[in-house]
Structure formats: C-alpha cells, structure tokens
C-alpha cells in the first residue's frame, strides 16, 4: 500500500511536470503563431512602393513614409525630454534623498505612475498640452505626452543601475576630496551606464509601439506631407497600422501587416543595437 502510494505521488509529479511544460510551450507557441500569421499576411505587401510611398485611399499605393518620419520625431524628442529628467530623478532618489516620508512618497508615486494606463496619459496630454498650453495636435504635444509615459521606465532602470554601483568606488572618490556631484558625474554615472542605456532602449521600444496616448493628443491618420517643425501635425507608425486595420477593404489588412513587419523590424534593430552598445560599455569598464 505504501509502495503504491509512493508510486502515485511520483506519477502525480511527472504529470504535473508534463502539464506545466506543455503550458509554457503553448505560451511560446502563441508567439510563433503571431509572427507566422503576420508574415504570411504582410510580406506580399512589403513592396518598394510601400516603403517609399505616402498614405493613399488605394491599398496598392499606400506607403509608410510619413508614419516612419513621425515616429522618428516622436522618439527623438521623447528621449530628449525623458532621459535627463528620469536620470536626474533617479540620481536624486539614490544619491541625495534622505530616507524619509517625502522620499517614500516620491517612490510610491513613481510605481503608481508605472501602473497607470497609457490612455490616461493621453487624457492628460489632451487637457494640458493640447488645450491648456495650446500646443495643438502637434509633434510637441505627442512627444511630451509620450515622455511622461516612459518616464517611470527610465527612472526605475536608472535607479537599479545606480544602486548596483559598488559603494567602495564612491568612497574612493570622496577620499580623494571630490564633492558629491563630481563623484556622481565622474564615477557613478559612467559605471551605471550599461543599465541606464538598457532603460533608454526599453523606453524607445515602448514609445515606438505605444498608440493610445498619441491618438488622444490627435495624431492624424492621413498626412500627405512630412512635418517641418515640432508644432506641425503628424502621424506615427502605430497610428497608420491602426488606421489600415480599421479600413473595410480586405487588402488594407495586408497593408497593416506590412506596417507591423516594419514596426517589429525597427523594434528588433533598436534592441539589437542596445545589446551591442551595452556589451561595448561593459567591456571598457572591465
């Protein structure tokens, strides 16, 4: 009887092992299904015309250029706004702030911002940047809104990176008579650079794919000329994909899939670049 009970328990263990392995593989299989499906639908539409053309009412003439240009503008400005602020905030919290209630409040506030849906940031952007500051439905409004969306990502990644800088490096710097700011500038930030870069790359990826906030601040889906300055109206790659997906003609579904392939290609490039840059930094430190 005991022997049988032991066998039963071992059998249960093996079954459990099999089931959770299967479930994990199933989750990974979803990824392959998704990639396969999108490539199958999108590849025929990924033509020269698509990569160099402008939006059109006809699927065969539709192009991705204004979306790409708009996304590049948004990403560039978002990084310009969010990185100094996010890094500064992380430096303050990790290097300067005393461990008191005020600091605790800022930390809880940041973790709450990280959990706030991006559409709520879109409402903030609509109320503040578009209507109150009167930046209108412009690249500037979109980029400011997006900066706030990615700010918690930059802060948290930079905080982790700064925390991982060993204490003896700081002490060495102080012992040589440096001020805190000199220590941060010359020792802490360079040492934390790989982690900070990871955060920046994560926020670029997020800003590339994030759709809801810039729909709210009024990105247009049909833009026939490229923006000339940051107060111009704009479109972005995910907005184009959204627009094509929603069109009734079946062919536009293929165009949307082609847009998704371009978007995922960009995401892959950015992340690959990140790994290369990070390895380079890490080597130079070692």
């Amino acid at each position, binding site marked *: 009887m005991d022997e049988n009970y032991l066998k039963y*328990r*071992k059998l249960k263990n093996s079954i459990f*092992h099999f089931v*959770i*392995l299967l*479930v*994990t593989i199933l*989750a*990974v299989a*979803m*990824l392959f299904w*998704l990639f396969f*499906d*999108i490539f199958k*639908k999108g590849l025929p539409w990924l033509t020269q015309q698509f990569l160099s053309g402008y939006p059109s009412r006809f699927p065969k003439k539709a192009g991705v250029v204004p979306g790409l240009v708009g996304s590049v503008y948004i990403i560039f400005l978002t990084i310009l706004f969010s990185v*100094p602020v*996010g*890094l*500064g905030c992380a*430096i*303050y919290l990790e290097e*300067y702030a005393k461990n008191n209630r005020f600091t605790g*409040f*800022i930390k*809880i*506030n940041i*973790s*709450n*911002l990280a*959990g*706030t*849906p991006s*559409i*709520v940031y879109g*409402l*903030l952007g*609509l*109320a*503040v940047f578009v209507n109150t500051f009167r930046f209108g439905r412009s690249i500037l409004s979109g980029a400011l809104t997006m900066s*706030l969306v990615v700010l918690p990502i930059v802060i948290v990644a930079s905080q982790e990176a700064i925390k991982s800088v060993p204490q003896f490096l700081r002490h060495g710097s102080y012992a040589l008579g440096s*001020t*805190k*700011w*000199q220590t*941060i500038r010359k020792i802490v930030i360079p040492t934390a650079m790989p982690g900070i870069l990871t955060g920046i790359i994560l926020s670029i990826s997020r800003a590339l*794919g994030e*759709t*809801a906030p810039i729909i709210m601040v009024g990105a247009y889906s049909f833009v026939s000329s490229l923006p000339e300055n940051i107060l111009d109206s704009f479109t972005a790659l*995910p907005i184009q*994909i*959204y627009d094509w*997906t*929603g069109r009734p003609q079946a062919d536009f*579904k293929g165009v949307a*899939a082609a847009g*998704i392939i371009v*978007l*995922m290609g960009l*995401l892959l490039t950015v*992340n690959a670049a990140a790994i290369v840059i990070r390895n380079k930094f890490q080597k130079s430190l070692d």
Partner: protein
Amino acid sequence: MFIMIRDMISKRLSERTSRMKLANTTAKNIFLFFALISVFTTIGIILSLFINSTGFFSKVSIVEFLTGTQWTPLFSDRHFGILPLVTGTLIITAGAAVISIPVGLCSAIYLSEYAKPKIRKVLKPFLEVLAGIPSIVYGYFALTAITPLLQSLIPQTEIFNAASGSIAVGIMTIPLVSSLSEDALRAVPDSLRHGALALGSTKLETSLRVVVPAAISGISASFVLAVSRAIGETMIVTIASGARPNFTLNPLESVQTMTAFIVQASQGDNPHGTTGFYALFAVGLVLFLITLIMNIISHSIVQKYRKEY
C-alpha cells in the same frame, strides 16, 4: 614675494572649492526638481481629470452616471450610464485573467522549479519577447487571426467580440505574471526546498506546498498587476472588441470598454466644451481610480506579507 604667491594660490584654491560646492548644491536642486516632475505628473493627471469631469457632472448626476445601464453619448436621446462600459471592461478583464494567471503561474513554476538551466535559457527570452510586442500588434492579431478561429468554432460569434479581445489581452499579460511570479519563487531560499525534499516530499509537493506558499505575496501582486494592466489595455479592445456599449456578459457579442470609449470619443466629433467631450474625462477618472486602487492593493500585499528569511 613668497607670501604673495602663497596667498594667490590659497585664494585660487578657495575659489575653486567654493565653485565646486556651488556646482554641488545646484546639481542637487536640479535633481530634486526632476524628481518633483513625477509628482507634478500625478497632480496633473488628477487635476485634469477632475476639472474636466466637473463639466460633465454639472450636466449628468453622479447617480445616473454610476447606475445607468445605457451609454449613448452620441445619440440624440443621450444617456450617460457607465455600467455597459464597466461590464465590457469586466468581461475582457475576467477573460484575460482566466488565461494569463494559470498559464503565467504554470510557466513560472516550470521555469523556477523544474526547468534545467539550459531549457530555461531558451524559453525565457521567448516569453520576454511576448511582453515586448506592442498592443496594436496584438489587436491586429486578435481581429485577423483569433476572431476567424472563434467564428469557425462557434458560428454565431460576431466580427467584433469580447472573447477575441480578452484572449489577446490574456496572451499579452502572460509574461507579466510569469516573470514577476518567477522572481518571487526564485527568491525563496533553497533551505526551504531542501528541508521539504529531505522529509520525502516529491518535487510537486515541495513546489505547491512549500515554495508557492512562501512566495505567495509576490505571486498575488503579479496577479493584481496583470488584472490592472488588462483593465487599462486600450488598443487590443478598440480594434477587436468593437464599439457598442452593450450591457451584457456574453463574450461572443460586441462590447465597448471604458478605454475603447475614450479612444472612440476622442476621434469623433466632440468639440471642446460639449458634454460628450467631458464624458471622456469622467470615464478616464473612473479608470484612473480603479487602476490606482489596484496598484495600492498590489503594493500593500507586497509590503504586508514581505517575509524575511
């Protein structure tokens, strides 16, 4: 002569020191200001939602808003009862949780307790990629791949339906549950596992009766975060689940979530100053408060049950 030179040097040095000190305080103040920007953001969100909602609540009573079962802001016979949007959000969220929580937890247990390091190294990056795919892509996938599959299984499925949206949201939040739960499981010290195994437990018994209970705070926090993410998810449901505020719990019908309404209304003809425009912010306020409460819950779970090993 010597004294003059000495004085000059010491003056230079003290000037330099005070310049360094000035730079030090300036830097500190600038960083403090940057840290405060995150607080300003929260204040900005709360103020813009509240102020614009007052324009709405001066026309519509709060009781009607919270208990009405009709949401028809664009019809001539206008009703502003948020319940259809809430039930829409509810089925999407429940459906997503039914997928993401069991699948996420199973993969977390597998990766942390069962998988050999080599297999873990292969599988984990794939799950992480799943988390990095933009929601617009999942929306497209839901509409063009999941919905046709559902329709071939159950013919009465509508083109826009809650089920396909919630499946996609579920897939998207699997990595959130699995990676946070896995972190929690891996944080459980090996001494506990060894103790259980030494008493003759199988790996299954060790995992489910010792390791999972020890990591329960991190695991449940990951569940709450996944649910909170599903509530706020926008593009998937806007694309795949339709735009019909439908007071129903039938997942095969078209529904509208709170987030999908916000997108729809911002694109339509709701000039600044109309009740329809302010309705955006009233719904946004409800959404923000719900996710805020969820965030606080997950935070306090982690705080309360934090175990010191």
